[in-house]
């Protein structure tokens, strides 16, 4: 058996150590406190796009626990309890996500800034990513403008429904899998057409998402259109970070989580229980803040020009 050896070389493991140290220094100089939160939790996310790991407990009466898909909920509970600005370098787990740019167990850098909006946070993400990759300059593209620029399609227009988008996807890509709803078709156009098209654009922030893709971002008005105050950071056409101007209204948040469960029902997936501790914390009051999660493995892979995440992870999924 030869796969007892790491999947990453010594140089890359050293580069990982240096990057982690660089990140800690970045936040230390900016007075952002490092925190640690549990990995095995009683609540999880209803997001229909994320498959979770459930862990059965020995005591048959205790419900399963969930390996965290991100430290978001626990960190928001810290924020609600008065932590101030915080960051965390944490393991996160998403089942079924395995490939060149995915490992089911991966490392996330997540941080929150009090009193900031998503635009201010994008600028901080750009400094951190720019430092790590040795590049400067970045651009912001509203989701709508990017779709119009690359595909000539306005994703906010009323006539652009699922049937219309199916036609666009078929024209651009030939075959399209059956049973994709409107958002899944937008996702397909994003990953198959737009990501390759922005490969040479450097650091790109896509922002102002359709409300159906708001996740836990708040809603804002831009040019008389309601959009989600959410951003995705792309480098070389690859997604690196996802951030929100956080939804602090507890009623709106509960509605958004219900809507995600609604999408699960539509796709024939079982609903997931809503995390009551998160809702209680939000009722107590989440301070006005912006937060972002950034994939450390992907950032490192870009820094050292690795083709696949396995080359920057000590023991990838097949060797773990």
């Amino acid at each position: 058996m030869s796969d007892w050896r790491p999947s990453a070389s010594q140089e890359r493991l050293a580069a990982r150590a240096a990057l982690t140290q660089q990140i800690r220094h970045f936040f230390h100089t900016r007075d952002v406190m490092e925190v640690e939160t549990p990995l095995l939790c009683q609540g999880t996310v209803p997001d229909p796009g994320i498959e979770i790991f459930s862990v059965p407990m020995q005591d048959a009466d205790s419900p399963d626990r969930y390996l965290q898909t991100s430290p978001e909920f626990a960190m928001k509970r810290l924020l609600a309890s008065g932590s101030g600005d915080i960051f965390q370098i944490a393991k996160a787990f998403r089942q079924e996500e395995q490939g060149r740019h995915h490992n089911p167990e991966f490392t996330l850098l997540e941080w929150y800034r009090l009193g900031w909006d998503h635009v201010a946070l994008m600028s901080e993400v750009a400094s951190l990513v720019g430092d790590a990759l040795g590049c400067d300059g970045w651009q912001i593209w509203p989701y709508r403008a990017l779709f119009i620029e690359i595909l000539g399609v306005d994703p906010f227009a009323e006539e652009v429904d699922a049937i219309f988008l199916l036609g666009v996807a078929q024209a651009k890509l030939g075959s399209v899998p059956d049973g994709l709803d409107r958002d899944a078709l937008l996702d397909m156009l994003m990953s198959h057409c737009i990501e390759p098209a922005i490969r040479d654009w450097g650091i790109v922030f896509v922002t102002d998402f359709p409300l159906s893709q708001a996740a836990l971002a708040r809603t804002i008005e831009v040019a008389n259109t309601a959009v989600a105050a959410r951003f995705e950071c792309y480098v070389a056409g690859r997604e690196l970070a996802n951030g929100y101007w956080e939804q602090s209204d507890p009623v709106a948040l509960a509605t958004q989580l219900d809507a995600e469960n609604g999408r699960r029902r539509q796709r024939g997936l079982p609903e997931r229980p809503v995390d009551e501790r998160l809702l209680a914390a939000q009722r107590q009051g989440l301070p006005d803040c912006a937060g972002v999660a950034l994939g450390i493995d992907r950032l490192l892979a870009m820094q050292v020009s690795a083709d696949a995440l396995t080359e920057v992870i000590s023991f990838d999924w097949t060797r773990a």
Partner: protein
Amino acid sequence: MANFSTNEFKPGLKVMLDSEPCSILENEFVKPGKGQAFNRVKLRNLKSGRVWERTFKSGDTLEGADVMDIDLEYSYTDGEFWYFMDPSSYEQYGADRDAVGESEKWLKEQERYEITLYNGSPLAVTPPNFIELEITETDPGLKGDTAQGGSKPATLATGAVVRVPLFITEGEVIRIDTRTGEYVSRASKS
């Protein structure tokens, strides 16, 4: 046959797509931020040899294809079928023109070929990477004529025409790379 899910699509897996047997070449998992996960898959259609690129929703399944590769010895042709034999069981398989395809020009009796069977009958014939064949016809060496880059056409026992160096003569046995159709060397004397 069993069904395979997108996360089992490994290179070399044989599956049915649009009622055609295909071999998986590549499988890339793509997933935008918070959204729908997809698998972009490259497959070779084992009948036509064409490469197809398809996108599947992660978790979609395809039926496995009853395809296997075996090594058989070439025996003879009756013009319609090319017959190959399993040297241990003496079982014979007849491959039609579609299955033999380009490999026809490299068919030599008693040589071993890789035969791809689909539902028990030959779908494709793959020659060994290197094969030794006799030259049946070529011009005598042209002295001093370097205008052709030092090579000339030669017809082999199978009918294939390859370019050989000027010093090679009729009746010699040469070694060919069947993947490129290029001359490699004079055959080693055995």
